């Protein structure tokens, strides 16, 4: 990586609000960590396939059946705020 770590952009993408002191500390730590992980550059991977999963997996299709998995559960009962059988959130725009 070249240049300073863009902490504001990353915090925005990750939907995190950081304090000024958190920004300073995390930026410094990120630079140290990224400097360390940059040693992967030494590895020649031009002909190497990426691995996303250690065990081979094949897609398996099944019928899309309607089931009552949690008959006793009212999902809204876990919500921080709910109104008229809907999740309630602050105004969007």
């Amino acid at each position, binding site marked *: *990586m070249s240049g300073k*770590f863009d*902490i504001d*952009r*990353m*915090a925005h*993408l*990750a*939907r*995190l*609000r*950081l304090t000024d002191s*958190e920004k300073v500390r*995390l930026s410094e*730590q*990120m630079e*140290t*960590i*990224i400097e*360390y*992980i940059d*040693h*992967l550059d030494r*590895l020649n*991977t031009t002909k*190497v*396939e*990426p*691995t*996303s*999963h*250690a*065990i081979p*997996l094949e897609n*398996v299709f099944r019928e899309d059946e309607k089931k009552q998995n*949690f008959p006793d*559960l009212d*999902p809204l009962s*876990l*919500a*921080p*705020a709910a109104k008229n059988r809907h*999740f309630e*959130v*602050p*105004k*969007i*725009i």
Partner: protein
Amino acid sequence: MHRSTLTQAKEGLKKKQFSALELTEAVFKRIDQVEDNVKAFVHLTRESALYQAKEADRKIAAGEDAPLLGIPLALKDLICTKGARTTCSSRYLDKFVAPYDATVTERLKRAGAVIIGKTNMDEFAMGSSNENSWHHPTLNPWARDRVPGGSSGGSAAAVGANECMAALGSDTGGSIRQPASFCGITGLKPTYGRVSRFGLVAFASSLDQIGPMTKTVEDAALLMNVIGGKDPLDSTSAENALPDFTKALKGEIKGLKLGIPKEYFTSGIDPEVEQAVREAIKTLESLGMQTVEVSLPHTDYAVATYYILACAEASTNLSRYDGVRYGYRSEKSDNLLDMYLNTRSEGFGEEVKRRIILGTFVLSSGYYDAYYLKGQKARTLIKQDFEDAYKKCDLIVAPTCPAPAFKLGEKLDDPLQMYLADIYTISANLAGIPALSIPCGFTIDNLPIGLQLMGRHFDEETLLKVGHHFQQNTDFHRKFASL
């Protein structure tokens, strides 16, 4: 009674030396006596445990049998338990009561187990010391000024302090094996896919695996028989038939080839740890095993690869915590974006934020190929290292950790040093292979040292068999921390 292994407790119940209620009460009495010095638990489920114990006694009296009938067990607090809190040691989930049981919880309950409580952990399983818990740090039963390891530090400390017969943990980069090593107990990370992850709060889904944390290898085999096997609710759980792991313990180990990876015995390993591991290898040789040097040439790249991939997966997995459907919500927000920002910033601790930021970075436009894709390619090479090594040997032996338990606070301000402590455990997760940690010695300061055995995909049997033979011929696992 609280000192019994799971197998001994089963035997005692069968011979009617004590009832399940007496056993459970003895465990709670032990917890009342020592918990202030360990702080292994986040919450206890005393009332339901006593009810389950009475139910077990009723079933025993009626002549019923089940593999764990009446046995008190603890669960890491990221395994869902219906009707009980599952906090992940995070402020975000502090009030979360799981509406369903994880598959492993359901299987334990069906096998008759008594669930006594939920154990502490690093928040969202991110950490190697339990200092990242929102609740409190857990203390090492062998030395109160030292960490129990992490992230399953609460489970390891609870077993090490005899506060339960056994526990379950989860392992993404060493989170079962490293605390098992630090607390002088046995811990198995099964092959990826061997145990269902349904109801396990996700950290890095291509690496996470639930496994047993026990006093002996024999107990780990027993638990694996109960929790392992295909689950229709987890599409990544493997179809492979589940062997009888208890039966596998009795098999012959003479002639098995033990691979010693030269990259794991370089500078950076504590001399006392190296000596104990080399002694353990001699013990295994004396039991008829052959040793052969193997090479895992990409070991040096494992930590970097792991932190790229695990953080990338974590940053997407944790995007679900938006304050809308369950968990924490910040009260002071005027609009939706503010609500997301405030909720996540107040709900997550610093290490979780650090990993989300790193994961977001390696996945972000302009950096994806250089980091995430590069990491996935490095993962291929690390996996191939093991495939090549297993052409020469049946299993691989190594230390679990480069050093014994470190002091509380020692690595807290230096995240990279904390990450580097996982050097020996991370590769097994990247390769998806099973790995076992068993006690193999103590330092001069009486801190436990762990031996790690790594096997081929779906060959937990060989690991457990070799580990069991080692424990039949050594006493390290029989020592107790004085509390």
